[in-house]
């Protein structure tokens, strides 16, 4: 079953053609720049003129396929940037009406969960579903813990009350004068001092009884600490500051995940979202999982950690086979604050 999928939730214009769990073509507009060896500019969010790129990206994804080969169209409905979501939904609707295709609305966060089970065009890797899973979703816009009980069955058991983990890292980077986004820069600088935690910034929410996250207190104490340092001191200690901040964020993520495992008894962890591109965090999570003899999955290919449309197509497939797909093109509207708890109907 061939599905054309579109995701324009934030700053990547993405389209893909998938067949079940297999990705046949996958086009991401800005990721191509990020992945280049040198140079290239990281485009800022609102500047993403998705409209300029959407036809090109969809056309490229469809290069080897005719619309008559396509069985359905899947599109991200939310969460994300409202003006960005609109572009993808409009395009998907147009195509669905013009070619009489079924249209499927997908939650972007479902995509990040399923990104762990996506296969390349040859059907690899062959990961089986072993429900239930605990999913940790961490990106620039989200930080949540989700109980993934079966296909398309989710329960959000913890989420951020203010900033997302990726956002916290990016903001710390900006305070340090490292530009934006800064997650990868911080990872690199921290690695240069072996991820040492020199400053021991507070770990937010560790004492709270629930599974929610909060990073704004950490941000405040980091900002306040730096206020009392001279520019020269900050520059000299930049690696240690970056490393200590990163450690505080990651410690919190690991701690809450561990707590969620204990609370739910679910030991199979899956992780999705852009922050998991950080290899040091992967190491920390693996170490924790080992203590509990649990299992952990990361998205099998690098591009699947970030935003992409392939994951939307794969969710679309499971929606069709589980009879949860929409069909009316005109009732889909963008939902910028769509939650996994929202019933899509």
């Amino acid at each position, binding site marked *: 079953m061939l599905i054309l999928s579109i995701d324009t939730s934030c700053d990547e214009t993405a389209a893909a053609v998938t067949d079940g769990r297999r990705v046949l073509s996958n086009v991401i507009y800005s990721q191509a*720049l990020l992945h280049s060896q040198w140079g290239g500019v990281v485009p800022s*969010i609102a500047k993403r003129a998705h409209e300029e790129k959407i036809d090109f990206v969809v056309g490229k994804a469809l290069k080897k396929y005719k619309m008559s080969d396509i069985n359905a169209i899947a599109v991200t409905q939310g969460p994300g940037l409202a003006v960005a979501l609109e572009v993808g939904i409009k395009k998907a609707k147009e195509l669905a009406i013009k070619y009489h295709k079924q249209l499927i609305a997908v939650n972007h966060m479902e995509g990040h969960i399923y990104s762990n089970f996506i296969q390349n065009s040859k059907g690899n890797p062959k990961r089986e579903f072993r429900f239930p899973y605990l999913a940790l979703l961490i990106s620039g816009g989200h930080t949540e813990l989700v109980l993934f009980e079966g296909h398309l069955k989710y329960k959000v058991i913890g989420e951020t009350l203010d900033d997302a983990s990726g956002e916290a890292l990016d903001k710390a980077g900006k305070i340090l004068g490292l530009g934006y986004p800064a997650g990868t820069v911080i990872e690199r600088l921290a690695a240069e001092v072996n991820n040492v935690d020199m400053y021991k910034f507070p770990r937010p929410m560790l004492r709270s009884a629930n599974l929610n996250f909060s990073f704004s207190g950490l941000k405040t104490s980091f900002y306040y600490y730096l206020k009392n340092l001279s520019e020269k001191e900050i520059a000299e200690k930049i690696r240690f500051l970056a490393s200590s901040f990163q450690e505080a964020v990651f410690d919190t993520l690991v701690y809450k995940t561990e707590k969620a495992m204990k609370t739910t008894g679910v030991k199979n962890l899956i992780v999705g979202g852009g922050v998991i591109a950080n290899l040091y965090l992967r190491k920390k999570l693996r170490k924790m999982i080992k203590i509990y003899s649990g299992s952990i999955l990361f998205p099998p290919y690098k591009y699947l950690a970030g935003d992409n449309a392939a994951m939307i197509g794969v969710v679309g497939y499971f929606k069709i086979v589980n009879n949860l797909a929409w069909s009316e093109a005109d009732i889909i509207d963008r939902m910028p604050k769509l939650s996994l708890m929202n019933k899509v109907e």
Partner: protein
Amino acid sequence: MKILKINAKNVFMEVTKTLKKGGLVIFPSDTVYGALVDATNNDAVKKLIAFKNRPPGKAISVFVRDFRMLEEYVCLNHKQKSVLQQILPGCFTIILKSKHKTSKLLEAENGSLGIRIPNYQPVNNLLNLFGKPVTATSANLAGQSPCYSIKSLLNSLSKTKEKLIDLVVDAGELPRNKPSTIIDLGKDKVEIIRQGDIGFNREEIYVSNSPEQTKQLAKKIYKNIKYPQDKPLVFIIKGELGVGKTVFVKGLGELFGIKNIISPSYVIYYEYKLKDKIFDEFVHLDLYNIDSNEELDYLNLQSYLAGKNLLIFEWGEKAGRIFDLIKSKAHVVFVQINYKNLTKRRLVVNTNYTQEISSDNDSGQACLPAGRPE
């Protein structure tokens, strides 16, 4: 095409000679084999782009020798310099505003240039001798994997492509280092609203000792505002990172039964539909990540300013260019939050409820894109 070993006699002289003539040189670097041309020579850059099959409009970084050379070609302020001096030379590509002394074809759409000061002796030696920046792009064609050896590079090239190469410097198999990490410091500056721009005639000062108090203050402040009921109400909240702006918005949200407010920094804004309330929508905006005036144009704010909505801007002072639009369509409340200490905050609130808001020119014409160059 000539091939020289990295330790051959006069190898750097040969490379310099070739670069001066506008030639294309394959050269080792701290990451992969690079395709080097004189970055100030437009024809040489065109040749490089043809070689790479590089899509038009995609930026190409350059190598420079040191900060002196860097400052000749890009704008760098004191603060940026003190940070960069700590991490360079190294495996970072820094995006900065170009001084346009290198070929325009290397720049991104917004006129920024990617710059590297590598920690790699052969490139440094070459730059010492050549005295100008050279391009720092990988030698593989666009979309193909990078090359760690000359053999694998030449195997991947067609005869036509090979002919474009003037000189190859072979340093054997390079260690598989990670590609450079990009640090973007080349953003535009947006216009900032100052308090004076708002024309207030009433100022209230509050002190908060906790996030909970900030929330309660937000509710109190809202209830004290008198404003024309037929207009949207806009809060502009100014304050440094971590000072409690989102906390203030959470307080306002509670008044309308909204309990799931989180920071919209990443997506610019979240809208909350209100049922049976004074306002149709509660729109929580955050301009923190807005780095150029042009970006504001994409936000489609006119539609929100047309209705009966409550708009709350964090980092609203960055609304500079569209502030006139906001002022003409809405009643504006300005809140400045300052740190007193780690937990204590001072709130300065300006409500301009007595100010006459002229609606003469209010023809419904959207003036958002007005400032854009034709």
